[in-house]
């Protein structure tokens, strides 16, 4: 009677052939090794790069493959195949255009983002929501805030540049979304009127926002010194700093020229800032790239690169910076290796 169990065990040891399996095809490393290295080749704009909390990926926006909606993607910092993407292809939303903002992914895989849905043919969003999702299950999500809301007496309808500051807290640039035409025959323009930097706290029922005192009306902002300092600009010349908990802003440095600043990114006490302008060989339009050292309040012009660049992301190691080329028609992300000495 003990024979059969023994034979069963023996048979189990033999094992079975497994069916074929398929795994996602991935490209490792950048497509070309040129300088700068092109990371994206999308037919439309790839923009608003943001580093994940663990520094292991770059979140960015791209245009969805099938319906033109904006999607969020996650790229390896050094380039390659998107490791993850969020495109709302659910049928319920098929009659609406979707856009996203303020993506922030922490090391637990929690994804914070804003979605804006506009019925096809409508200009302004009908519904704007701040969501908290698991990046593995992006549509099993929790609505934290439905915009617009009143924060300390000010209206807020949009967030951008969100960054996690703790397991249940984040910081972001808040403003009012404005969709209008500058003139009767002008094209529709979407702008954000900056209100301030807000601190968000996630609660069981949603999230609360409060303005960080001293960081009002930021055109650009970044967290520095391990999240303890907010570096921001109210104008296009003065770089200010304020404790992340709020306080009186102090001047870090003044840029030598006044021109549109298109982004700032910090790592520790060093920041990279992009400002349109400057001349390059051949007389074309250029973008100045500055290094700002918070420890010494120093500003250094690193280089002026041809074209219009924005949204720098200082990667966690080395001097590599990811930036978005904003020159039509190539609005892609590029990697500048060793830009920071």
């Amino acid at each position, binding site marked *: *009677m003990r*024979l*059969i169990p023994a*034979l*069963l065990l*023996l*048979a*189990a*040891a*033999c*094992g*079975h*052939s*497994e*069916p*074929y*399996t*398929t*795994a*996602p*095809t*991935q*490209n490792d490393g950048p*497509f*070309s090794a040129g300088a700068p290295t*092109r*990371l*994206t*080749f*999308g*037919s439309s704009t790839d923009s608003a790069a943001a580093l994940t909390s663990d520094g292991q990926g770059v979140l960015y926006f*791209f245009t969805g*493959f*099938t319906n033109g909606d904006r999607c969020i*993607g996650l*790229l390896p910092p050094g*380039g*390659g*195949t*998107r490791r993850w*993407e969020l495109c709302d*292809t*659910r*049928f*319920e939303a098929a009659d609406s255009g979707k856009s996203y903002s303020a993506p922030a992914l922490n090391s637990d895989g929690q994804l914070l983002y804003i979605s804006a849905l506009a019925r096809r043919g409508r200009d302004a969003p009908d519904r704007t929501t701040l969501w908290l999702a698991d990046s593995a299950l992006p*549509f099993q999500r929790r609505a934290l805030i439905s915009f617009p809301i009143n924060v300390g007496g000010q209206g807020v309808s949009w967030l951008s540049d969100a960054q996690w500051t703790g397991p249940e807290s984040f910081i972001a640039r808040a403003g009012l979304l404005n969709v209008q035409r500058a003139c009767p025959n002008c094209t529709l323009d979407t702008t954000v009127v900056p209100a301030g930097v807000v601190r968000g706290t996630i609660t069981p029922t949603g999230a609360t926002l409060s303005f960080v005192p001293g960081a009002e009306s930021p055109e650009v902002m970044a967290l520095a010194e391990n999240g303890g300092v907010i570096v921001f600009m109210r104008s296009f010349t003065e770089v200010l700093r304020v404790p992340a908990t709020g306080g009186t802003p102090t001047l870090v440095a003044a840029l030598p020229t006044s021109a549109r600043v298109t982004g700032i990114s910090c790592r520790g006490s060093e920041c990279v800032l992009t400002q349109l302008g400057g001349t390059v060989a051949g007389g074309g339009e250029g973008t100045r790239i500055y290094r700002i050292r918070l420890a010494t309040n120093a500003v250094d012009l690193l280089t002026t690169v041809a074209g219009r660049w924005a949204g720098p992301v200082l990667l966690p190691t080395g001097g590599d910076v990811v930036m978005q080329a904003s020159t039509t028609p190539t609005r892609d992300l590029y990697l500048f290796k060793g830009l920071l000495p």
Partner: protein
Amino acid sequence: MRYLCLFALTLGAAAPAAAQSSGGLVGKVVDAATGTPLRGAEIRIDAGARAAITDTAGEYRIRGLTAGPHTVTVAFVGYRPSRREGVIVRVGEITRADVRMAPVAVELATLTAVGVQDPVLDPLAPSTVQRISAEDLRRLPVSSLEDALGLQAGVVGESYRGGRIGQQAFILDGLGVKNQLDASTGGSGLRIPPDLIADASLITNGFSARYGQAISGLVSVSTRDGGDRWRGRMAYETDRPMSGRSDLGLDRVVFQADGPIAGRITAVGILDFSARLDAEPVSAPAPSDPRDPRSTAPSPLPHNSGEVMTAGGKLTIPMGTRVITRLFGLGTREQRYLYDQRYKYDAELGPGRRVDGTLASAHVQLLPSANSRRPISGDLRLGYFSRDFVRGAVTSPDYKFGAFTGSKLEVQGEELARRQDTLAARQALPGFDTPTFSDRTPYGVPAFFLGNATQGELAFNTFSELRSQLDFTAMLSDKVDLGFGGLHAAQDVKTFQRVFAYRPVGGIVPPATASAFSPSISALYAESQVRLSDIAVTAGVRYDAFSPGGSLDNRTLQARSSVNPRIAVSTVLSGATIVASIGKFSQPPDLQFLVDAAFDDTTRTGRFRQGNPDLGFEQSTQFELSARVRLREAVSLRVNVFNKRLEGLVSSAPINVNPDSSVFVNADIGNVSGAEVILERERRNGWGMRMAAVLQRAEATVTDAFQLLRLTEVDIVNGDTVRAARSQWPLDYDRRLAFTATVDGELPASSGPRILGIRPFERLTGAAVLRYGSGLPYTRTNITGDSLVGEINGSRLPSQFTVDLLLRRPVRFGGFAGGVYLDVRNVLNRANQLAVRRESGTPNANDATIAKLAETAYLANPQAIPYESPRYRRAADTNNDGVVSGRAELYPLYEAAARDFTQPLFVYGAPRLIRFGMEVLF
């Protein structure tokens, strides 16, 4: 390693079991010297389990014997006791065993029973019966009742004599068991373990008026009773020692035991669990494109596993000398993960299906009085049968052992389906997401293959039936038998279907359909057999009634009824038994045709199919002439010629001119005619053989909604209809020629050389089955699929041919008897084609079809694929610019994807299947 396993697995043990069930034994006891009938002789069956005394004519009658071999002993004062073993009693039949007894003082060589009724020549048996004994199930390369039935003449798959699937009745221990809801598309949900079967029969002609609900045939199965001592069998089957395409992940474990539990009460219990990683293997060739994962691993297919778990038990409770009660229970759960070519690269998103079948029955058998001159026997049967079906989105299986998951397959949304909440189902169902084109394919392009989410299918139905059945058989005289009885079955049906569950209802998304109603069927019958010398006339009439119940369609529906006379005349002419029979048969339509249904099948019945509660019986009138003759003592020949007229077959008809909707009606008529020749050599001297050849033509009108709309063709010049919408075409199972041969034998104990003290061929048994079938019909269409080419079912598939083999050798281990066996199906690994593409007539799509599919897909999504996209394939980026763009780079990917997508899989039959088995008797 695998061959070590093979060697190791070739160790085990085996055993059959005696077959038993219900039939009768009659005979006459005479003085061997004078021929004088002996009154008062005592007939004992199986050492006195049953007994009878001969009457003044020397006759005895014993009814209610379990089918199978019995030992008959006859004793009478002054005479030498007579004993004969192995007298076979067949289910539902009377076997005749006359006995010549010799006085004690007289030495007589032939002292044993003689004249056991020949089942071949018996003129009293009007049915055309093909039997499957427990011995057959053990000796032949079959592992299920369905396999064994497939060897019989007139059977094509689950179609009998050209009929549609489900047009046959299934009788288990005399009780009708049928999934009346969707027999044409789903089985009963019950799997009868072969170890539980004592005897099975396939009856294809005008059989007894006792049976209804069948217009194509009758399958009758008798299960075994417990024996008078405890015994059992454990078996394990696997294909683990094999590798590559021969390892389909099979594991099967069987445990069966029976014996007495208290007094004369006996019990039988069985567990039969099997699982296979590829539950529906195909012999489709490996594709040549190296990017296709099937090119190197053509099988097993992923997400195509299945488990079948059956548990059953039976209690036999003798109550006094004339009453036996049997309690029987059987439950089967079959759960399948279903490979879907659309999800080839995201296989885990394929659908799943779970079917639960349950049967609980009680049978009270009244045996006739042993000394009655007018013996009457009766059977009261009560049965509860249910079948529960659910199909839809499932989570990936978590295998525990082989393909065994050890858990219930859960279908997403099942709870809502069971609630039949059609209101909530108007919205997109929670948890369902929209499928998108897969980005995991080797081609990257968004075409054909799906990912991200399931298809959003949710289907549920349940059918249950409480059946009571009463049957009496009376022997009015030596020449006249009378049977009568009736049944009533109260049924309960619930259905629910939802498609595109990730979308709210509207547009192309039809509303969820649901139904809940309680139909019933009832029947009365009377049948008599009159025997006049060598002529027997069997005549009967059956009244069938069927009511859909009052809750369907919100109106009172009339019951339908049908009177079905049947008559058979049998006699013996020149040593051959000739039987002519004619009978009318009715069966209620599948209940699924009475209710609305939602589908995603635009090419056949549309997305919405309207039920018709007014459907009536499907009917047939069958005529058969058969001749049975013994060519030699052990060799018999049977020839059956039959004609079956079909009427009122359910078919779908279009609603107006909308091909996307249809309604069911009793519209089709047809005709099946043919001849069967069966040559059989009984198992004697270690071997037996059987050959069956069938010539058949099965045709009917085919008023299919899809085909009707496209078939009618009017001459544009004179306005004449050049192709009518309604005429007879071959039925789907119109196999014109079929041939089956089985041969089996056993080597004697001293066979072969002795090697290391062992004779490897000692008592080795072997069986081979050869099958040939001419091609089944199919309909050609043009490349777009919207026009027929030629007639409906006007083309033929290639013929099919298989050879199966079973080798078994008894082995003893310690105190256990047992055996090991090797079962090989489709030994030649022939790739039989079960279907072809309608537009090409071959399994593969032709270049034009692929080009059309590729072009359509490319035009739908001509977008460039950037480097960072998961869809980017560097090899396709021929100009190396980081973007796969333009027709030159994109179209070849679409074409390769189309070729992959259209590769034929399930159009091929099973490949060579090898299983090793071991069994231990205890």
